């Protein structure tokens, strides 16, 4: 019941997203022919012909109905720019983005957890301040800048990792680090604050009264409890990371849907934009659904009420 409802409302959200994006793109000035044909060379007639061929001269509702009916048939359409089937395009780019997102999430969670826990355990001590400062730095730097700095240092100067490409784990290191640091900043904050909440809980007293060591109290009990709110972050984080790929994939010359959607948005390649939005929305919704479900796995309180 709960899951069915969630899926239903998720579908609604995705559909709404598509309509919204379609509408935004429709009101965007210009069309794909802008980047396909040079107006200083081509004649107006040639441009009009091209537009007609692409169908971008049609009114909104016709374009939309056409799009929706194609979608309904499982046809995501073809790129207006080069006629590549959108589905192929997405499937080609998706693994790289998935790898990047997963690797970044891993970096975020690892760094975030370690720093967050350290910070909470050593509350108000030097370690706390250091950990928070590091976390804050992560969320205070523009990613494209920190990415370039990492490239210059670790790739161009030291030659440890490649500066570009999306094949092999070595190409993942720098971009995942860049993007992961941002997420780590959020997680540090979250873990610290939820750890501190937990530390104030009554049951901490019980645990200590049982004679448990501080290590067990903190890392077995407090951390386990603090992880629960942190898990919600992951859904949000995945969203942030998908968004982050727009910039990061460009900086690191990676394949990925962030790359194509940026280009497609600029070029107004509507089917591609729609397809990618559909996919990211699907991922986002799925991840959040998973997070909700995994919630009930890790938090017995939710399991009961769900």
């Amino acid at each position, binding site marked *: 019941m709960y899951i069915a409802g969630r899926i239903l409302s998720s579908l609604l959200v995705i559909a709404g997203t598509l309509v919204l994006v379609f509408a935004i793109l429709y009101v965007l000035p210009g069309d794909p022919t802008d980047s396909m044909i040079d107006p*200083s060379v081509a*004649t107006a007639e040639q441009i009009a012909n091209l537009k007609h061929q692409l169908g971008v001269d049609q009114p909104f509702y016709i374009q939309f109905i056409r799009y929706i009916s194609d979608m309904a048939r499982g046809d995501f359409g073809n790129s207006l720019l080069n006629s590549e089937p959108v589905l192929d395009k997405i499937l080609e780019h998706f693994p790289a983005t998935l790898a990047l997102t997963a690797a970044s999430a891993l970096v975020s969670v690892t760094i975030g957890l370690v720093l967050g826990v350290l910070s909470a355990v050593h509350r108000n001590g030097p370690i706390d301040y250091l950990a928070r400062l590091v976390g804050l730095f992560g969320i205070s730097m523009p990613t494209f800048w920190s990415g370039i700095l990492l490239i210059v240092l670790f790739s161009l100067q030291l030659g440890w990792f490649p500066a570009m*490409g999306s094949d092999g784990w070595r190409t993942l290191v720098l971009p995942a680090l860049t993007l992961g640091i941002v997420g780590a900043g959020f997680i540090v904050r979250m873990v610290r604050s939820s750890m501190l909440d937990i530390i104030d809980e009554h049951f901490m007293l019980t645990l200590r009264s049982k004679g448990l060591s501080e290590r067990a109290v903190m890392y077995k009990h407090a951390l386990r409890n603090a992880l629960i709110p942190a898990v919600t972050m992951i859904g949000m984080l995945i969203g942030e990371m998908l968004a982050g790929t727009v910039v990061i994939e460009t900086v690191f*010359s990676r394949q990925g849907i962030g790359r194509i959607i940026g280009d497609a948005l600029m070029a107004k390649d509507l089917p591609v934009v729609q397809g990618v939005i559909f996919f990211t929305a699907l991922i986002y919704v799925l991840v959040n659904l998973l997070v909700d479900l995994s919630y009930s796995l890790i938090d017995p309180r939710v399991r009961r009420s769900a």
Partner: protein
Amino acid sequence: MNTFKSKRKSLHSSAALLLVLALVLSACASNKGSGNNGQQAQQQSTDTPAASTEVKQGGELTYALATSPDTLDPHRSGLAVAVRVIRTIYDSLVVQLPDNSIKPWLATSWEISDDGLSYTFKLRQDVKFQDGTPFNAEAVKYNFDRILDPATKAANAAALLAPYKSSEVIDEYTVKLNLATPSRAFLGNLSQALLGIVSPTAAKKYGDQFGLNPVGTGPFKFVKWEQNAEIQVAKNPDYKWAPELVTNAGAPYLDGITFKIVPEEATRIGSVQSGQVLAAETVPPQNIVALKSDSKVQLLGANTVGLPYTLFFNQEHEPWNDAKARQAVQLAVDVDSIVKTLYLGTYDRAWSPLTPGTFGYDASLENGVKPDLEKAGALLDELGWVKGSDGIREKAGKKLTIHYVDGTPNREKRNDIAVIIQQQLKALGIAVEVEITKDVRTVVYTNGDYDLYGNSQVNSDPNALYSFYHTTAPNAPKSLTRLSNPEIDKLLEQGRVETDDTKRADIYKQIQHYIIDQAVILPIYVFPYTVAADKSVQGLVFDSLGYPLFNGVSLSS
């Protein structure tokens, strides 16, 4: 070996000529007094004679591109970056040499009818497409008709092909192209990669998807394309019909080329230095300067031809319909300073509406305009524009402003030109509002909402000027300049059809003079296509439009 006949005066092909072009960059750099160009030129010349030393075969060139090609279907592409790859896969009927002469390629010879309306090409008989399809008259006809077919969604190729009307297959290897109107630019356009010949079999087979599965007759054949990451092409071992432009007439030395797409400048250039790629294109000026001292890296390049980066006045807008006002701006803008500051002496200043390599370029215009703020001020004073309290000139309560539009963000520092001109014109008392927009179509072409608009065009023929300076038909979209001068119109029309090169050159010189004298435009710079390459990369040359040719590239150890 191919033999060819041409009615046109043909020049001897020579490696030396190619060299000149390939080293334009070095040359222009040495103009500004950089010291180490000689070394480079030397190095190039040692590479070139293929005969003298054994050219190393094999190896794979990694070549970093700045952006991702849109499609590898030449007839549909709209991006220069795509042409760099397209050129490796497809050949054209003819080739244009740096001296602007047209030479055989897939066509061995051609005849032009006296009325200039039909071109009859004799084709090579030993050419096969990479998919085995034989190259013949049918294929040529198919190609050009394909471009005309709206279903192809041809873009710039359609514009280049104009005024093409139809083809007739005379025999297996003879094809006649019919034009609607005569055009001196037509042959030149045929040499462009966008009018490259695609395999009819593959084009029919893949239809819409041909751009992802390209097949041509070129020296390299398509292997794979990972979008936004890399494009691989492999040596076409059967290739033996290279044009005169390259020294290696046979199959390329390289096993293949991997084009990497690396948009971030610092990474692209840095990865050559750190050995992650062997070559990278569009080197920014600041890196050119720095790379010159890098012993592992060489700089190669060629100036592009056609229209330089030019600022077009919109003569429909007051007061820029007045030559004096425009001249005032011309005198106030210190282009030398712009070029020196922004491009650090690595780009040439443009003086004419055409770039130096273009047919008919008038070198006498060079150094003709010198900044003179005083005179500029006097001109404006004369027109009644006087400085107000804020330093901005006004007349009848109206401020003197320039709406400056540029449509190419982040390219070749064009935005920065705007910033500098803004400052320079402020000194004259003109307020410059800069608008950088992606939507050039609406802002510039539809609404005409600009006083100054910056653009450039790579073109093989001076006829390019026609669409910028010829009076437009009453209901047709207006030209960028809105210039309407019967004399210029007449000259432009003559230039289109004049068959005598000397006369034709003269016609274009008159046009250029008029345009500069009347300050119709402000030419700014000539774009050099620049490549940073590892020193092991040898034999890279460029065609007359500045596109790299890999036929003769080899990798020394």
